[in-house]
């Protein structure tokens, strides 16, 4: 059944304080909607359960990219086209622009927001693996104030996160200390555009000679929510990058991954391809030697 516009309320208070007022006055009653690329799909199909929606679109306080010497700060309603267009962000943290280019099409990237991608919390979310390996922090805001959590602690289960009923995701903080890390990101989907991931892997690493001094690995669709691969990281951290180390890391990934069968792929395919992606990254690391 199609969605009926008469059965959903939508208001646009127009400013961040007004939205926070509304959320505080009736916690949990209002569902924020930004660019609508997720919720309007559900609405059209007649499966949008939220009856009261509050628009975040067009609120300037939520759409910005700031840079300080220590970090980039990205407002939650920043679109993926905004992210792709930001020159210094793309140069320093290229995985952000790369994952942004994966989001649907131009017409999706002009509306889809990074905050929306994270709050929606799909295990296949395109922006999540890159944010995880860049050690992003999430800043949340409510009338009660602001707080920050590491992004790796933001998702708590399938489509669940730490946001309180009166809170909004306000911004994403990206530390500027990965410019000299080796960076890797690859998505495997059905086609090059408009495809939701079957599996994706992101990595940042710092080598000293042949020793892995820092390693962060994160995947899409290998767990119920976007998550780091801590056990696989442990198999690599502090180790000399040898064939044996790589084998141990691949075994760790295969043991750690908890993919599922669904319409896009199978658990077995995801597990194998996830391991192949890790192998590709480790090969690149060992071929290219020490980082620049």
């Amino acid at each position, binding site marked *: 059944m199609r969605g009926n516009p008469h059965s959903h309320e939508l208001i646009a208070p127009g400013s961040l304080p007004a939205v926070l007022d509304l959320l505080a006055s009736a916690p949990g009653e209002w569902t924020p909607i930004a660019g609508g690329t997720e919720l309007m799909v559900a609405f059209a199909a007649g499966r949008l359960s939220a009856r009261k929606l509050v628009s975040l679109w067009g609120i300037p306080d939520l759409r910005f990219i700031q840079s300080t010497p220590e970090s980039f700060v990205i407002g939650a309603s920043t679109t993926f086209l905004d992210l792709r267009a930001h020159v210094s962000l793309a140069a320093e943290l290229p995985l952000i622009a790369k994952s942004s280019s994966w989001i*649907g099409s131009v017409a999706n990237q002009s509306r889809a927001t990074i905050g929306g991608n994270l709050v929606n919390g799909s295990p296949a979310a395109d922006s999540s693996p890159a944010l995880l390996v860049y050690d992003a922090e999430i800043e949340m805001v409510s009338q009660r104030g602001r707080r920050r959590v590491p992004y790796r602690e933001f998702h708590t289960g399938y489509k669940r996160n730490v946001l309180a009923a009166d809170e909004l995701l306000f911004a994403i903080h990206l530390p500027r200390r990965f410019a000299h890390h080796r960076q890797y990101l690859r998505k495997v989907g059905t086609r090059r555009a*408009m495809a939701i991931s079957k599996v994706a892997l992101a990595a940042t690493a710092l080598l000293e000679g042949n020793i892995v001094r820092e390693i962060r690995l994160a995947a899409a669709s290998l767990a119920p929510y976007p998550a780091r691969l801590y056990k696989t990281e442990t198999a690599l951290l502090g180790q000399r990058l040898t064939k044996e180390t790589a084998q141990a890391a691949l075994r760790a990934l295969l043991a750690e991954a908890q993919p599922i069968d669904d319409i896009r792929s199978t658990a077995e395919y995801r597990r194998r391809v996830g391991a192949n992606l890790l192998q590709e990254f480790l090969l690149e690391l060992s071929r290219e030697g020490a980082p620049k």
Partner: protein
Amino acid sequence: MSASLPTIHFTVNGKECAVQAPPMKRLLDVLREDLHLTGTKEGCGEGECGSCSVRMNGELVNSCLVPVLQSEGAEIQTVEGLASNGKLHPVQQAFLDCGGAQCGICTPGMLMAAVQLIEHNPHPSMAEIREGLAGNLCRCTGFMRIFESVLAVATSAGEPVLEKVDHAR
């Protein structure tokens, strides 16, 4: 219920409009049903096929995913707004010249995506054209003639394409 509906103001193809509609009504439906601008088509209704592409404040959007309230104050351009003073937009002319349209359902969205691309990048490569149109599906042409149409505009800067029309007439 209609008495309590809000009035939403925006500009469509340079013309100011005021529409009374439920705020969650899709911009696509407002364009087609309230404003009778039926050039914009509905394909999938879920942002996958690009048939409903329009430009909103200079950005390409799927109008099936825009609740009309979010277009308050916006400048909207639809396929009806591409031609000016009786002259086709160079992209429209190129589609005619190169056989870029067959059944026509995807064509308005293709045109809007192509115009968006050309305005930001007047001389796109084939790869950039493919990316710019990646969100627009066509089930007739096999895409090549569409890409060639956009490439024709990109390499001609528009002018020779328009001259060609005059000869044809």
